């Protein structure tokens, strides 16, 4: 078991991602859904990458998924695990896996989101093995109705 604590560089929001990072401060993790074609995409855009509709909304994610692939970086000054996680909602995103044992980590393993502080204003969503008894964060709610962001 390794917490894989490290100093994460602060994400620099763009004009259309401010909502996501403000919500991250409250420990809430969102994806974007298109109301025109119904699809959920990652990374979040204003215009849907499938149909180019502007009718996209932020939807709070259950924050659960499975590891698609990963690479353990164990020789760096601050070791870390970079990974792609496939969310239960569909899309796959780049992230880090924390609070885990690199030697037993596996593709297909269930993970859930938590937030780690960065060196700046916004915390960063990372993932840990689901059911981790060492988790530092309570489980997020499983389903929250989609809502339109005020600044979107």
């Amino acid at each position, binding site marked *: 078991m390794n917490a894989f604590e490290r100093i*994460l560089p602060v*994400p620099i929001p763009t004009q259309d991602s401010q909502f996501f990072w403000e919500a991250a401060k409250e420990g809430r993790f969102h994806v974007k859904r298109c109301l025109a074609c119904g699809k959920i995409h990652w990374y979040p855009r204003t215009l849907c*990458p499938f149909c180019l509709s502007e009718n996209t909304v932020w939807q709070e994610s259950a924050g659960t998924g499975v590891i698609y692939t*990963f*690479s*353990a970086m164990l020789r760096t000054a601050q070791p870390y695990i970079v990974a792609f996680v496939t969310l239960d909602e569909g899309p796959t995103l*780049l992230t880090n896996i924390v609070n885990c044992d690199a030697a037993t980590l596996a593709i297909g393993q269930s993970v859930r989101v938590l937030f780690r502080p960065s060196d700046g204003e916004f915390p960063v969503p990372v993932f840990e093995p689901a059911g981790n008894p060492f988790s530092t964060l309570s489980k997020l709610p499983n389903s929250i109705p989609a809502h339109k962001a005020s600044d979107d």
Partner: protein
Amino acid sequence: MSIHGQAYVVGAYEHPLRRAPKHSVAQLHAEVARGALDDAGLSKDDIDGYFCSADAPGMGPTSMVEYLNLRPRHVDSTDIGGATYLSLVSHAAQAIAAGKCNIALITLAGRPHSEGVATGTQPKIRNPSQPDFQWEYPYGIANANGYAMCAKRHMHEYGTTSEQLAWIKVAASHHAQHNPHALLRQVLTVEDVLASPLVADPLHRLDCCVVTDGGGALIVARPEIARSLKRPLVKIRGAGEAVKHQSGGYFDLTYSGARQAGAQAFADAKVTPADIQYVSIYDSFTITVLIQLEDLGFCAPGKGGAFVADGNLISGVGKLPFNTDGGGLCNNHPANRGGMTKVIEAVRQLRGEAHPAVQVPDCRLALAQGTGGMLATRHGSATLIMERE
């Protein structure tokens, strides 16, 4: 209109240096331009088309056109990373076919080793307005782990092993021993690769390419001009390009853009993988080679591990000789962009000018393949099929 037969590669030159602490980048561009012109038997003032990419200092082609004191009537600059120089050969042939120029110069140069900017395990800071940057940079995505994640998934789905990947480096090292300019000339074994440090699980240090200063240049010309020169004729038969990315979050990391780029090139060239006698395959990492070989159809998806094992890529030993200069894995990866040297070694093979120890007998049909950017996140892919007439 197909690219088939519209233009020929008439000049090719690889800078002999791998460490250039006292050269400027512009000087390296000029030296490789001169080298390619000498190789073709042409002079600077014959050039009427100039092509470059983001390694060229200045705004697109303008600064290098001035530095070289060229008078082009057609210029172009594009950037799909290390694959760019294969696509520029195609773009030059297209410009020639459209009557926009007759003799096109393509240059590449850089000095990442001397500038100390290149380590494959360091995340790169980019312009924050690049839309993916905020979603990726905090996680420490870097070249080595980006490719490592593709290798890990390929292993998971197909049972590919580190030993099989190591064979790719071993084959490159067998070729590099004959190249006096190669950075790494020591013949390696599978055990050597596996004993090297695990820089990004499952990739070892010896799964990675070299970091070198230097460069290269190519000259592409109209068919009647090519026939008037004294060099062996190397005809462009087919070309293809692709950009593969995360597709809004729904993607498969076990294949690359080479699947699309290769299909286009083979359709242009009207040949099949079985017809190809030599391949230059972009080799930023061993996994890059394995995935592209599958995507191009040299073996079935998932069978790349078995295909590359036991020396099958070693010239004179295996069925598909690859990167006979030692490739990016052992010889040269100038400016961290290996596409230029991929074309150059393919041209050497087609001319019969590769080192005798690695020359493919009567090599008439060769393929060069590039992957630029990062395999796991987004990359450009370009394929070129060339024939000796």
